[in-house]
């Protein structure tokens, strides 16, 4: 039986918790803006006054960066990888096995709370200003907005499953530095968060297209700027759902193995 009220309580408490760590929220917002500024400048330099490249206008490209940076704010507002690994290391997670709730779900709902707080009090106001003061493209139709929201949400879930799976891997490894590097590499490059996939060399684009990471930033952002349209959207969403199911399966598998290890080997 799914106890919505219980998981919703985690959402509420995480929301409150974020309110306690206001400085954290501020500094995260600060670094998010710095990255936005950095990548915005890089792309401005790369376009070097050209109207468009690969059929994408400069304005659309700038919008791409702004939107993906916004999404990266959303995706970074939950329990970070290192924090989860710390919980694994100290045995906090093992103790949660004793509670009548599902651990991966409990953290997902808590993340909803932290994200909601960060979204309402930092991201949204700041990005409204960004859109007001910089000349960017907004989707014309409401359908595009809805599709953007849906794909962004699926992307969030994909990222959550992948990040959690990586966290739980630390149950099995003594050293986790390498794992963390792989995760962040895939997260920043293969997801298309700072360089859209169409600018990748062919082989890398092919590789990225067949990976789950593009579903996190590339798909929703490209829909937002109108780079992915029509039937392609349906195909993209199907790809996302496919990867969500796969990543969810992996998360379940890793979690099952991890909790098995805890109860047999004591963590």
């Amino acid at each position, binding site marked *: 039986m799914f106890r919505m009220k219980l998981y919703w309580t985690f959402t509420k408490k995480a929301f409150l918790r974020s309110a*306690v760590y206001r400085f954290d929220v501020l500094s995260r917002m600060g670094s998010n803006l710095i990255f936005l500024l950095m990548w915005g400048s890089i792309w401005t330099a790369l376009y070097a006054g050209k109207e468009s490249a690969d059929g994408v206008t400069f304005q659309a490209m700038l919008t791409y960066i702004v939107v993906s940076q916004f999404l990266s704010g959303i995706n970074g507002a939950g329990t970070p990888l290192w924090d989860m690994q710390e919980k694994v290391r100290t045995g906090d997670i093992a*103790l949660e096995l*004793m509670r009548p*709730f599902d651990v991966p779900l409990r953290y997902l709902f808590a993340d909803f709370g932290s994200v909601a707080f960060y979204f309402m009090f930092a991201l949204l106001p700041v990005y409204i200003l960004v859109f007001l003061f910089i000349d960017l493209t907004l989707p014309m139709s409401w359908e595009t907005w809805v599709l953007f929201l849906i794909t962004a949400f699926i992307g969030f879930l994909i990222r959550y499953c992948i990040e959690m799976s990586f966290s739980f891997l630390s149950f099995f490894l003594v050293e986790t530095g390498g794992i963390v590097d792989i995760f962040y590499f895939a997260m920043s490059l293969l997801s298309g968060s700072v360089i859209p996939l169409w600018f990748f060399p062919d082989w890398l684009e092919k590789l990225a297209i067949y990976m789950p990471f593009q579903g996190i930033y590339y798909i929703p952002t490209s829909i937002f700027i109108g780079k992915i349209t029509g039937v392609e959207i349906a195909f993209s969403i199907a790809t996302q759902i496919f990867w969500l199911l796969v990543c969810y399966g992996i998360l379940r598998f890793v979690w099952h193995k991890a909790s098995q290890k805890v109860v047999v080997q004591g963590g």
Partner: protein
Amino acid sequence: MPIIEVNNINKDFMVAKRETGFLGSVRSLFKREFIKKEAVKDISFSIEKGEMVGYIGPNGAGKSTTIKMLTGILVPSSGTIKVNGIVPYEQRQKNASNIGVVFGQRTQLWWDLPTIESFELLKEIYQVSDARYKQNMEIYQEILGLDEFLNTPVRQLSLGQRMRADIAASLLHDPPILFLDEPTIGLDVVAKEKMRTFIQEINRERKVTVILTTHDMEDIEKLCNRMVLIDHGQKVYDGDISAVKERFGKIRTLVVDVENGEATFDIVGAEVVKREANRVWLQFNRDEISASELIGRITQTHSIKDLTVEEPAIESIISRIYQEGFEEKLVSV
């Protein structure tokens, strides 16, 4: 019917063997050798509803490991466990609603939430009704004095406050069984006393069955009638505390202040166990020599300025058992 039944449980941990030297560490990259560590060996006991049992033993004896098996977060390597009719590790979540657990070494509250928020979360997790929650909170606030820190984040609580919050949290859902793994560790005398009073009250008023591990024998003496003593993973004693006292209580200590602290005593049935300035501790067996007899013998050769006879504290009995083993003592006393 016993509320907790443990039959012949074992718990082995596989510990990776550490290779030394460069070659060793390279080798261990490819092939790891494991050593079997037997943390719990063939332990059985059963506990009736409402009992308060002290589960004691020296460091590394296997106490926490046993508690973890009872809570379901560890699976025994063999043997069977039933807690309130449930096999803990098979129905971990169902078991969770029957038990309250406190691990004194670590908190189970949410580190960065104000204490009250943790309680509210637990209320939701264990589906405690509003009325019940209110009633319990009132009682716990009164006995444990939670008011003063309810709005403080858990990470800012002092150890004593945290422990009080933890035990209140473990009892919010009125579990019939309470596992306390070192609930008084690191507490000052007053806080310990408060904690004991609370545990006693819970046990008496609500018939909560309690298993308690501790290194403070005063906890045991004040709270438990029964103790299970384990050492190196094995049970060495299970029974009345008074019986242990009775068994080992024949050993008494006579403390005398004499003129010369170096004085020798050559008395059958008594031996000097400690000296400090002019004070001498003489241990004697009541069956072999009575206190008055012993005093009489001493006054023949020494002049006594002051004396006391010490009853054996459970603490010293236990420490003797730890050091010398239980069986030996049975034979030699």
